[in-house]
């Protein structure tokens, strides 16, 4: 059996297991409720601003606001996008790390805890099991953010006059931007999940690592020290949102390297460890 087939079978089980579990349903519910709440609040604010300043002023205000965060190039490229979708993307990016932590902290640690992993290691290559767990976690987290976005798009269409094409095209594009970031966070979480036999330890260390990276990112932004902000995957959106293919490619590469670093290290340790 090819490693890809093994990975596919492990991913299939992870999807079924997570999306049918109480934890999976609760997390999906929280995502959807949070997304819908944010959408409604943003739509209300968007309506007030729109009626006060007019469409043209809003467009230039939007461009300026985005430029302040991401630079002029991205500000110009995203100026035509409805604010609500931008807020939704920002929320999804912020959520990506926490969602990865809560979806995946026990993905390997849970199997190591009571040695259930032994039912798999006699049947699959350890690398296939581990990569399957990682891909499964990423697929579950992505499915949850997609569900959240889909529900929010429906709410946007029902509650505003934003054209369907704008919602779907911009919405889908922005959701795609969150995927490499989510993949990077999932690698960090699976690293810690494979390190411990106790899921709660994996949860705490993953959350602590996320916090450390967030604080480092914040310090970097506050002190204009751009180099240290790259430790935080959610900051890769500066590249992924760029209209320049080179910069977008660099964003993909940064996310890929971050994921490869943690996944590679985790795999190396898992190959050597006593199951």
């Amino acid at each position, binding site marked *: 059996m090819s490693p890809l087939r093994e990975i596919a079978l492990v991913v299939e089980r992870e999807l079924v297991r997570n999306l049918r579990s109480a934890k999976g349903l609760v997390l999906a519910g929280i995502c959807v409720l949070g997304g819908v709440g944010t959408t409604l609040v943003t739509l209300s604010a968007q309506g007030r601003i729109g009626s006060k300043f007019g469409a043209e002023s809003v467009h230039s205000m939007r461009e300026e606001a985005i430029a302040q965060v991401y630079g002029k190039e991205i500000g110009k490229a995203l100026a035509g996008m409805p604010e609500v979708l931008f807020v939704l993307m920002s929320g999804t990016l912020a959520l990506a790390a926490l969602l990865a932590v809560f979806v995946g902290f026990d993905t390997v640690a849970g199997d190591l805890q*009571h040695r*259930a992993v032994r039912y798999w290691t006699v049947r699959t290559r350890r690398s296939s099991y581990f990569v399957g767990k990682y891909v499964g976690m990423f697929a579950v987290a992505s499915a949850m953010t997609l569900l959240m976005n889909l529900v929010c798009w429906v709410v946007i269409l029902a509650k505003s006059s934003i054209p369907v094409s704008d919602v779907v095209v911009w919405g889908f594009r922005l959701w795609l931007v969150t995927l490499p970031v989510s993949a990077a966070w999932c690698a960090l979480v699976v690293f810690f999940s494979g390190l411990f036999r106790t899921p709660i330890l994996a949860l705490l260390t993953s959350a602590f690592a996320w916090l450390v990276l967030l604080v480092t990112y914040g310090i970097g932004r506050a002190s204009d020290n751009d180099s240290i902000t790259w430790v935080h995957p959610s900051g890769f959106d500066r590249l992924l949102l760029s209209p320049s293919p080179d910069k977008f490619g660099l964003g993909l590469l940064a996310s890929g390297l971050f994921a490869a670093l943690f996944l590679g290290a985790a795999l190396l340790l898992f190959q050597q460890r006593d199951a």
Partner: protein
Amino acid sequence: MSAAKGPESVASAVVLRNVTKRFGAKAAVAGVSLRVPRGAVYGLIGPNGAGKTTTFSMLAGFLQPTSGELEVLGFAPSEVDQLRGRIGVLPQDAVLPPGDRVGALLVHLARLQGMDRTDATRDAQKVLAEVEGAGWWDTRCSALSHGMAKRVQLAQALLGSPEVVLLDEPTAGLDPRVAYEVRQIIVKRRGQCTLIISSHNLHELEEMCDGAAILDQGRLVMAGAIGELTASAAEVRFDLAEGPVPLEAVRGVAVVDRADFDAERRELIVYFTRDRADAEAVIADVLTVLLREKARISGVSKGRGLEQRVMELTR
């Protein structure tokens, strides 16, 4: 570690060559060499800390040896692709994933062994029926009792009719009735595959196994057929109640090499040479003498019993 890529028809199901496993400074297994013939029911015996579970775990690929070589069907245990579907393992302390339903879990594991969904479902139903758990298909693993969980664990080890089945303490913690039923399930597989059983229960192993390896403090102290281990072809024991002990008369029997009497246990031990007579002939001749001399016989047994042999050989 490396292993020869053995042919399909390797004579030994399992081979260990000078295998050592260290945990820090402590050697859990030290220089063990062993061969288990194909088709045998083979026991791994020893007291706590003897290295049974460590040896078992290396055979199953859970642990890697510090040095030495292991082969299962001619392949290193880590060569999962070559051994896929050919080896079944019942780990002692691996809990079934609590959120999974029994049927779905077995189908998933069978598919990982290379079966398509239809075959996997059919085989999962078959092994679940074999362990008398056909009604548990939709039950969550977390809802299974200890005995039910052990049967499901056994079922997953039997998926796909593997050529080698490793069973670590298959009846540990089970009540006598369930333990008996589990033993019957195992015995039914005799002749269909090589069964390697690690257990503390020596009576169980003596009953089920063709051969065994006795480990103590990580070292192999003896290995061979059960008959050799228990010396059942070289000595016979007669339990005598209060009354005459015709020791000299027994020593005079032609096929008897030596006879001793353990007064504390009131046990007459008769030693003989296998080439000159079999155990049944010796029993017949000695019984004749004992009855003639009015000895009161309360029991006869061949050999020492595995338990006694293990007690003699281990600390």
